[in-house]
């Protein structure tokens, strides 16, 4: 872990792997003292926002160093959410070619993989899912060379090591493999994001 400066009320903790980011986020969410007011995980970093009147930058740095994760994250015991997907996306052929398999096998491999939400970015409720620690990684999928101007809410896409469901209609460059009716973002729930960091996810194929 490397601690980087980030102004007068935050630090950024940088890690060598996403798995260590997840381990740090899980540990710190559970144990952080009152002066640490927000933790924002991303691909290789956790942004640590502090309240300087409660805990100074120096004290925060000491606490984070003393509580650095020693091992990558396991699968955790976050809530498990099942998402029913129709695998009929426009980019199935691209993914099948990247993975060296048939169109049907894309769905089979995607549903056979247990996923976990590593972090949220891009838009409210846009959860970046990665294969759970115990599973074999899937081959990395390149982003589309040009973004689509409009992707429907509920579209399931792949990019690099990640899977994500678009929570809102938006532009985007991920390779689309299917769609779901699941509501990724709803203000009618206590937690508006269906898949918060640490949530485990299983995709289930449904007929088109």
């Amino acid at each position, binding site marked *: 872990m490397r601690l*980087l*400066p*980030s*102004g*007068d*009320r*935050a630090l*950024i903790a*940088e890690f060598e792997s996403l798995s260590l980011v997840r381990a740090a986020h899980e540990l710190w969410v559970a144990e952080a003292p009152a002066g640490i*007011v*927000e*933790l*924002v*995980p*991303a*691909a*290789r*970093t*956790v*942004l640590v*926002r502090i309240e*300087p009147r409660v805990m100074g*930058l*120096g004290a925060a740095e000491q606490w984070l160093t003393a509580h650095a994760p020693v091992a990558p994250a396991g699968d955790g015991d976050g809530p498990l959410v099942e998402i029913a997907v129709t695998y009929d996306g426009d980019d199935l052929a691209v993914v099948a070619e990247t993975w060296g398999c048939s169109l049907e096998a894309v769905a089979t491999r995607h549903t056979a993989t247990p996923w976990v939400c590593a*972090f*949220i*970015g*891009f*838009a*409210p*409720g*846009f959860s970046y899912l990665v294969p759970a620690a115990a599973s074999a990684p899937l081959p990395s999928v390149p982003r589309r060379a040009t973004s689509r101007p409009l992707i429907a809410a509920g579209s399931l896409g792949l990019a690099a090591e990640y899977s994500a469901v678009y929570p809102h209609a938006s532009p985007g460059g991920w390779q689309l493999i299917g769609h779901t009716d699941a509501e990724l973002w709803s*203000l009618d729930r206590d*937690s*508006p*994001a269906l898949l*918060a*960091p640490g949530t485990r996810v299983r995709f289930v194929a449904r007929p088109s």
Partner: protein
Amino acid sequence: MSAARVIEPGPLALIHDLGRPGYASLGVSASGAFDRSAHRLANRLVGNPDHAAAIESLLGGLRLALPAGTWFAVTGAWSDAVLVTDEGARRAVEPHTATRVETPAELHLGTVTHGLRTTVALRGGLAVPALLGSRSRDTLAGLGPEPLRTGDMLPIGPEPATPVPPADLVPIDPPRDGVVELRVRPGPRHDWFTAEAWRLLTTSDYLTSARSDRTGVRLEGPALERVPDLVGVELASEGMLRGSIQISPDGAPTVLGPDHPVTGGYPVIAVVVDASLDLLAQLRPGQPVRLRLAAGRY
């Protein structure tokens, strides 16, 4: 419940409180009043709690119909504000003071003359529905109360427990017209840039771009170069803050505002310190800005 009616919103009038911090890991920025000190002052003047919802008017031009008995205060950017009664009597509204509307009247904000964003607080606060604990409009995520439109009725909340403080005019200068100095501290990716880039950042006069909004304030000036090894390298997206100074691939700095994206992939060279953040809200297009290294650790 009494209500204020929007006669004319001006270029952009938004409802804000002090925002919804704590949801960044779900992809939602804190948002909230851009000029927090102006927001707090307006609320204190009318005896509201600091976090009560008020109006943030961009450039002025806002016209509100206020019922008799309403207390209000105007802070932040200065404009010629007047109160016009139904009988047509006009009187000037002093900034930074609580004013009571004796008979139904219209509050008219003129075009701003100093600064950019004016706060108008009504005693009781604006009782619009809260979303994730806040009545702030996040312009990037499209969350919270819609921008004000002509004809909107803004419900005014119940009388707060605190009386209107007896303080007279609060002696506060208008937002600065000349060079504005913002203090900064190093950001997480300061070492992606050359020593010359850091020198330029902290010694040059930058100009506030007209292409600035609540997402970010763009600065025009010398381009900042990366160290040769990192030219063209892509940074994995990481958490951003209000005040983070991102450098886009062409070397131009953008200071992120309250509605910034939660994560971003442009390297952050420096971060504006908390004490300087409210000044950002009042920068006018073309206004010169200097960034200076703040004392402190790092």
